[in-house]
């Protein structure tokens, strides 16, 4: 915690009436993150960690700590739509890298206990205005990678906002490889897994919960919050099973439609198979990640209602499942009515989620390219704020400056989608965050190379 951080926290405590902490950010160009265009001279009011009002003509409540953002831009904190933030400190240092595993489990894996809020990339992304991140495990053994979380990047050491937010499954080239070499095998494994989970779900009547009571109706049973719960030990299973008990139990919320099933699919035909899955298993809450060729099946995707988290700027046929890649993919899907968010997918997502704001800006720039499809500025900001939140069903919590959302707010030196701007203040849950990183410390140490009275190691 920096000195500046303490001082601002102190100022807050002094300014706010007892029991309520109110921050009013005034005078800035305010963008709500909901797709609307930015407005000038807006005010954002955060009370007790939540947004209570944002926009033009918003009154500053009495007792509020006023932050003058005149000449600045104010947006919701950016949401990394797909990342591995917090799972890695240094990629090539195995001990600090918890993305994937060769261990015995797959769907049961839960990234939450592996999140390290002190990993350097967390602070570095925070300093770039990323306040929340969707964090997915990577497939290690089998097509199911496990359960991903929503985290915040705050400095309080409590990163997990929502554990087990979704299950992640590979159904493209990676899925085929994990399944032994073919997509057909991956699809059989998926259906078998859903069958096994369904049997557990159906048999849950006999399962006692931790308090020893029998749930009245398994279909109304809350999400299996934790695969380690003792009640899951006693689930009856027939003998024709491939999944471990924990993996099968972890998929119960998926088959019940209580937990999103995030499916990676890039190729047009793979996307169509996911759409078909929706017809076969209507209860599934499907989300597609990737969709490099999504624009070629955009109308079908839109009709299916399945939302997409896509890379913003793939343009290369990097593999045979991405032959149709184009920077216009997101814009074309959006124009067809697909709900699209931007994620960093196979794109240094352990560290570089902050690049998404420049990617979004590039999509705005496509408006000037004949034949290309991009996004409006408001849509582009939404693609890295509210859209990923809404795609995963947490749009009421984070991702915009609409009333009631968590007080995740960034004040920028300028247009946040352009290259020259920087985050100047970051609030998470209404708490102003330190923006120092290892990188800023090293910068300050080596600002001058002149020999001093002591070695560089004493400069700090």
């Amino acid at each position, binding site marked *: 915690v920096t000195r500046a951080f303490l001082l601002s926290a102190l100022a807050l405590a002094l300014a706010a009436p007892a029991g309520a902490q109110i921050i009013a950010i005034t005078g800035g160009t305010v963008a709500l993150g909901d797709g609307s265009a930015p407005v000038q001279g807006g005010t954002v009011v955060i009370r007790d960690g939540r947004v209570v009002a944002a926009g033009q003509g918003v009154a500053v409540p009495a007792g509020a700590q006023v932050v003058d953002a005149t000449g600045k831009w104010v947006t919701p904190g950016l949401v990394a739509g797909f990342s591995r933030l917090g799972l890695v400190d240094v990629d090539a240092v195995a001990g600090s890298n918890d993305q994937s595993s060769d261990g015995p489990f797959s769907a049961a894996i839960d990234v939450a206990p592996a999140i390290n809020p002190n990993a350097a990339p967390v602070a570095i992304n925070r300093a770039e205005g990323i306040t929340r991140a969707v964090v997915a495990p990577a497939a290690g053994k089998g097509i199911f990678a496990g359960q991903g979380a929503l985290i915040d990047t705050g400095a309080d050491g409590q990163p997990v906002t929502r554990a087990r937010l979704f299950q992640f499954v590979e159904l493209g080239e990676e899925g085929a490889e994990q399944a032994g070499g073919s997509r057909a095998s991956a699809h059989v494994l998926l259906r078998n897994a859903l069958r096994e989970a369904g049997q557990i779900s159906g048999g849950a009547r006999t399962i006692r919960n931790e308090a020893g009571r029998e749930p009245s109706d398994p279909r109304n049973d809350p999400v299996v919050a934790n695969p380690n719960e003792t009640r899951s030990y006693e689930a009856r299973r027939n003998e024709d099973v491939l999944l471990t008990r924990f993996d099968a139990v972890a998929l119960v919320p998926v088959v019940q439609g209580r937990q999103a099933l995030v499916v990676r699919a890039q190729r047009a035909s793979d996307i169509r198979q996911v759409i078909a899955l929706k017809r076969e298993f209507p209860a599934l809450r499907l989300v597609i990640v990737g969709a490099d060729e999504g624009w070629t099946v955009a109308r079908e995707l839109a009709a299916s209602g399945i939302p997409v988290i896509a890379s913003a700027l793939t*343009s290369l046929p990097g593999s045979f499942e991405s032959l149709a890649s*184009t920077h216009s993919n997101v814009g074309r899907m959006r124009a067809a009515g697909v709900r699209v968010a931007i994620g960093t997918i196979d794109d240094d997502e352990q560290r570089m989620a902050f690049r998404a704001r420049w990617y979004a800006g590039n999509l705005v720039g496509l408006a000037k390219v004949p034949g290309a499809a991009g996004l409006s500025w408001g849509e582009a900001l939404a693609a890295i704020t509210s859209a990923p939140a809404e795609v995963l069903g947490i749009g009421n919590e984070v991702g915009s400056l609409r009333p009631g959302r968590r007080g995740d707010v960034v004040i920028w030196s300028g247009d946040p989608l352009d290259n020259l701007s920087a985050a100047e203040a970051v609030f998470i849950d209404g708490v102003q965050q330190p923006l120092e990183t290892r990188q800023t410390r090293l910068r300050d140490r080596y600002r001058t190379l002149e020999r001093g009275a002591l070695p560089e190691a004493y400069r700090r």
Partner: protein
Amino acid sequence: VRFGLAGVALAALVVAGCATTGSADKDQGERVAISPDPFPSTYQRYPGAPVVITNVTILDGEGGRIDNGQVYLADGRIQAVGQSVNAPAGTQTIDGQGKYVTPGIIDVHSHLGDYPSPAVAAHQDGNEATGPARPEVWAEHSVWPQDPGFSRALANGGVTALQILPGSANLFGGRSVTLKNVPARTMQGMKFPGAPYGLKMACGENPKRVYGDKGGPATRMGNIAVTRQTWIEAQAYKRKWDKYEADGGDVPDRDLAMDTLKGVLDGDIIVHNHCYRADEMAIMIDLSKEAGYKIGTFHHAVESYKIADLLAREGICSAMWADWYGFKMESYDAIRENIPFVDRAGACAIVHSDDPNGIQRLNQEAAKAMAAGRRAGLPITEEYAWRWLSMNPAKALGIFEQTGSLKPGKMADVVLWNGNPFSTYTRPERVWVDGALLYDVNNPRLRPVSDFELGNVGEGDVK
């Protein structure tokens, strides 16, 4: 940095059918000579209509700027640049209102063609990871000219020339090749005429990781030992050939690996040294002096900011990213101000990609570095920052006499941007290479489509 263009000599040796010395040396018999250029460039510029761009913001690549200026291109060359230029009446005119003209971007670090798209196993041709010292391999022999990445670098990135390097698995990775970003059926058809060769070297984690369980080197000290030992062999080889060239006698044994190292020792081949850490760069500088060569550029150079004064003194360029960090230990200490801090110290700073996506936005990488420098208190102008993208890389590749800035007489390698190229909102509008218009955002016929893409979904699409 002085690397003569004539210095392509001693590139390779041709034992038979080669030139001989004259009759004056009859007493010594026919001398075996070395072919400097066994895979010669067949690149020929394409025709281009003369054109004048008016009312345009010009960044000349050397630090100069003209607002509302004019640029005149004809006969493959930059004819004139100024507030106004004299062009023959009737020359096609493009109104550049609200737009920028710059020299084409030059990427000193690309693996296009060697690690092409699609990135399938059959295409992984960038690392001859069969021994830590493989200077005998040449990156050009792996270049697949149908890599769709070249066209993206042109159309999205405004890249007009690029160096293709071997990877960094080896201490000596092999020779690099500099290409014009002009599609061709063969590698030779893209080869930048007269560009000197480079030698890719590497220090640090990669070689010891790759060879640690394959007989070594397994440590950084092992890396340095193998590197020094290899140079000792190269010095002996050079002595033998120098003696033969001076005195005749028995023809020394031929060694492809040593040919390349001899080329470095002769000052004809430029050393491009992959090196992240400041302490390792300092060791490589001493090593180069011991071995008798000069390092041209440290690539990746994540910690150059710690020794920018040393790099300035030694006249060594640093090719850097704007914000890459943390993917391995030796990139742990990256800072956003690396490029501007190196530049501030008077050392040569270059923005490089090492990436088929990054090469499409090198202008934006420069923008981020410029912005970080400004926030650190350095007043860096746009026209100054463009040196990181054109002049400095051209110098590092030994092609600055021909390209890399908008000076009359130079190759007309030019980009017209549809706005300020430091913005995310800006793209190339037109790209000329040697005066030929090879990309026009308004003309779908002027988009290169590689053989690989032809007949596949997305052929000829905006990318």
